[in-house]
């Protein structure tokens, strides 16, 4: 499905609004990790659970699905953190991603598809494990990053650890890690500070690093002279 372009700033506002609504009902969320499951359960009251999605939908590599009419979210059992504790970060990102679809795309889908007819086997949104993502999937990913790692919280934690909002030039550490593990140029290793913050926000190191780069707290290129 083709979705309207949404500016990152608007996506951030939508994530912030969702967290605000939850806070109003259940008390301020002052520190990480962000309670994504509670947002699904207590605030949105969606039908939420796990399933063997590739079998039940007959589509390979499905990680999550959202039914907009049936008000239902299912996460694939391959991400169940009670079975695979190491997947907790990926799992929480997937829940936040499906929440992104719910917040950003639900009304668009309901308006545009007069003929939309959901069944158990046919959700409106199916999210697969693929690298080339459609705009609708990219928007949900961006939303998930904003929801799980709100700017102010990330900056506060960064200040606690680093002492200031001084960015970290990660060029050397990344090239060291790449040399050690023999990673390709485009496959970025996770630096120490991102791993440390990832534990606090209960997300994957990779998601945390992307967020820190976007916030300008990690620099992956040498800053030009005279910039600071």
């Amino acid at each position, binding site marked *: 499905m083709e979705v309207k372009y949404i500016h990152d700033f608007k996506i951030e506002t939508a994530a912030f609004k969702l967290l605000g609504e939850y806070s109003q009902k259940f008390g301020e969320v002052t520190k990480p990790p962000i309670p994504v499951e509670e947002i699904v359960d207590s605030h949105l009251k969606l039908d939420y659970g796990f399933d063997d999605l590739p079998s039940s939908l007959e589509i390979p590599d499905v990680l999550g699905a959202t039914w907009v009419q049936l008000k239902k979210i299912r996460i694939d059992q391959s991400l169940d953190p*009670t079975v695979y504790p190491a997947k907790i970060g990926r799992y929480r990102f997937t829940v936040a991603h499906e929440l992104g679809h719910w917040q950003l795309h639900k009304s668009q889908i309901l308006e545009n598809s007069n003929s939309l007819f959901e069944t158990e086997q046919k959700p409106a949104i199916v999210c697969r494990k693929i690298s080339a993502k459609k705009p609708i999937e990219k928007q949900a990913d961006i939303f998930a990053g904003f929801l799980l790692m709100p700017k102010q919280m990330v900056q506060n934690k960064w200040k606690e650890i680093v002492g200031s909002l001084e960015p970290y030039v990660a060029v050397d550490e990344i090239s060291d890690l790449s040399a050690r593990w023999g990673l390709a140029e485009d496959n970025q290793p996770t630096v120490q500070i991102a791993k440390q913050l990832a534990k606090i926000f209960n997300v994957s190191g990779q998601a945390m690093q992307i967020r820190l780069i976007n916030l300008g707290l990690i620099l992956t290129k040498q800053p030009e002279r005279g910039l600071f």
Partner: protein
Amino acid sequence: MPGKREFGNKIRKLRDAKKAIDPKFSLRQFALAVGISATYLSRIENGDFDPPAPETIKKIAALLGTDADELLALAGKTDPALQKIIMEKPKMMADFLRKASGISEKDLKKIIKDLPDKKD
């Protein structure tokens, strides 16, 4: 007729009512408290899987604050403790139950109330 769908619906309903106000009853935390995986609990609730073992059902009932025997009946199972009681005095207990099943509910309640408590 008990079945997996009724059992699943029942525990989903009970858990839903509680999870809205207490995160202890979220799928993940509740599954951990019962000692099963979140996927297994979720698929029992969906009716994809048959109800779990009687001991697990008793644990679910205790955590949800609901009657274990009713939940077991919904799953088409009986409490293993009851089977043990029958096995210990098979003839007498079976006669007792057969006779009791013909009595009206009101009278049965009264009889149960009048019976002396079990001495250990």
